[in-house]
């Protein structure tokens, strides 16, 4: 436990802060379903790349800055502090696919796909869940059959975030139906524009199509799109999920702190703290949000010693979900009757219901903590 007050890091933060103050888009991110959403995110990502702020801890040979995880965390903090757009069609690319390729991809894959992400060219989507494989992900059934130097994919995926805006998908497919369920899975890079791929957006309870259902009807991709080895995809997927639990999506996590700052500001301005129960809940959730950031540092501090994010960091996600849920509900109570109008916080409250479900329900997460951290029997 020690305070890092290195001059270099302070300068890096200052530099980031200055750049962001001049470059964060003044226009809000469109909340529409058309191509303008992708264009907006691409433009913002391109601007970050050109300014030298894309892939802070990615290798320079793939277009990154080649700095450490600590600088990456500082960049995320400054992004959030500057109220920069943080939802993006590139979220899966940065939080999932990129880190997975860095950990498990071959040289060819890394040098082809990673720069395209950093330059804001190719959004990715995630194709893990299926109608019959939710929390029990390993029971997935989408088939992939080797045909010469190609894989032929048939089946369906669901909850594919950003599917309608993506060029590539990280896809888990079953390549050996006879093997035990964890053994016959392969992690592939899907071309979402390939013939036989049918993408249908699903409207969520907030009226926005956050996810898609995707049907694969003998869609073909080269065998070269397999990451790591055929039938070793479960292990690759674990790397993906480790990235998700680790520094991936850190900007999303930290943005909760800024949201609660906004709530606090609003409550103060509108005299809502006179309601003692509102004040109590706000103080509590603000304290809880502070821990989101300290947990990130705690995790990075241990990761620096060369450890993979462990199961105990599932606690980070469970904690975050609790904060998100309570803060979104509190926002409505602060608004009172006004929340009945279609306000951004009303929408945010509705969208918060996905938090304890997406990426594995919190029920399953707590099973994992009970079993892998505390050693409880299954």
């Amino acid at each position, binding site marked *: *436990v020690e305070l890092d007050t290195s001059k270099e890091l302070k300068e890096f933060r200052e530099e980031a802060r200055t750049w962001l103050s001049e470059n964060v888009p003044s226009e809000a991110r469109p909340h529409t379903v058309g191509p303008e959403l992708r264009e907006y995110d691409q433009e913002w990502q391109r601007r970050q790349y050109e300014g030298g702020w894309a892939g802070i801890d990615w290798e320079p040979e793939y277009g990154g800055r080649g700095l450490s995880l600590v600088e990456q965390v500082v960049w995320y903090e400054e992004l959030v502090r500057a109220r920069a757009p943080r939802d993006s069609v590139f979220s899966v690319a940065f939080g999932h696919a990129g880190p997975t390729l860095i950990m498990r991809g071959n040289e060819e894959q890394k040098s082809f796909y990673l720069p395209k992400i950093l330059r804001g060219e190719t959004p990715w989507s995630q194709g893990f869940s299926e109608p019959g494989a939710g929390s029990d992900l390993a029971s997935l059934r989408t088939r992939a059959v080797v045909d010469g130097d190609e894989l032929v994919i048939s089946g369906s995926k669901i909850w594919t975030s950003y599917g309608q805006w993506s060029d590539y998908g990280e896809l888990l497919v079953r390549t050996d139906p006879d093997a035990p369920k964890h053994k016959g899975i392969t992690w592939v890079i899907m071309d979402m524009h390939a013939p036989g791929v049918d993408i249908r957006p699903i409207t969520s309870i907030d009226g926005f199509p956050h996810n898609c259902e995707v049907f694969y009807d003998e869609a073909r991709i080269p065998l070269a799109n397999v990451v790591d080895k055929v039938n070793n995809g479960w292990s690759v997927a674990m790397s993906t999920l480790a990235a998700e639990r680790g520094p991936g999506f850190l900007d999303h996590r930290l943005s909760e702190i800024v949201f609660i*700052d906004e709530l606090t500001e609003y409550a103060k301005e509108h005299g809502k703290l006179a309601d003692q129960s509102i004040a109590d809940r706000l*103080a509590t959730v603000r304290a809880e949000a502070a821990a989101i950031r300290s*947990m990130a540092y*705690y995790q990075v501090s241990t990761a620096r010693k060369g450890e993979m994010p462990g199961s105990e960091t599932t606690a980070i996600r469970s904690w975050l979900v609790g904060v998100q849920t309570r803060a979104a509900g509190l926002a409505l109570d602060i608004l009172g009757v006004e929340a009945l109008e279609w306000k951004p916080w009303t929408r945010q409250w509705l969208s918060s219901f996905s938090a304890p479900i997406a990426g594995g329900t919190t029920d399953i997460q707590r099973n994992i903590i009970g079993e892998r951290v505390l050693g*409880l029997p299954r």
Partner: protein
Amino acid sequence: MNLAPSEEQASIAAAAADFLAKELSIARIRDLGADQGAAAIDDGTWHRCAELGWLGLGLSEEAGGVGLGLPEEVMLFRELGRFLAPGPFLSSVLGARVAFRAGQADLAESINSGETRVGMQVGDLAIDARSDDLILALDEFGGRLYRVGESQPVAGVDPGIRFARAQTAGMVAEYMDQTLLARARVLVAAELLGIIEAVRDMSASYAQTRIQFGKPIGTFQAVKHRCADMAIAAYACAAELFQAALLVEAETADAGFHAASAYVLASNGARRSTADNIQNHGGIGFTWEQDSHLFLKRALVFENLFGPQRAAYRDILAPERHEF
């Protein structure tokens, strides 16, 4: 900001845990608790703790301390909480600081060495303050030490703590510094973290071995999830606590916010975890002979140590923005 304990910091915790397991086992704590006429901790053990440097870990060497910082004190206090250590550790550690900063090096040395004990004023109650001891009155502006006059025992909720109504004679030292409360909150948060971790481990161990319906009760999701919630609370609390310790030590602008946050997280986590721990144990958890209630009671005292939680809430709501 590196929040992982260093090897040296971890060794402070390990040495403390080792000593506490040997010298202040739960059986011994129960013996001490049974004799409410005597002090919460005997002079011999108190002096040995003082010799280990526990009362002056974070005080500079010129003040007769060990010369380490708040993060190291946090490592110690986490173990004191985990082992339910009896005795006025918090108020004596803070009292030595007040005495030294007030220019009374001799008094600081006397507290450090275990000669003088410092109890704590909590509302109208004096805790672990015998006649002739000192007592610390702490508020958001700083701390004052008074000499205890007559001390009238009062039956209290925690058998490991002595409660009294005490007359105070004159003020002995005064140190007005708003960071003192932040320091106190961090140290109590550390003890509360130790409590959360202790009941987490107690519950997990019981859930692995207690058989009902032919299987360990830890297989039941309801029980498993309560245990997992304890682990989640402990992880979040540890992270926020270590950060708060660093910032309070460095006297940054947001130190008070983080100290209050760590304290609130630890209080809430301990209140829920110690209650859930009783539920996880079923009927045996409701008995005097089982240890669960001792953790519940200690957590309650810590939650009330600085008056209502709303004082901490005010400090949490005060900053306009989170500092990055």
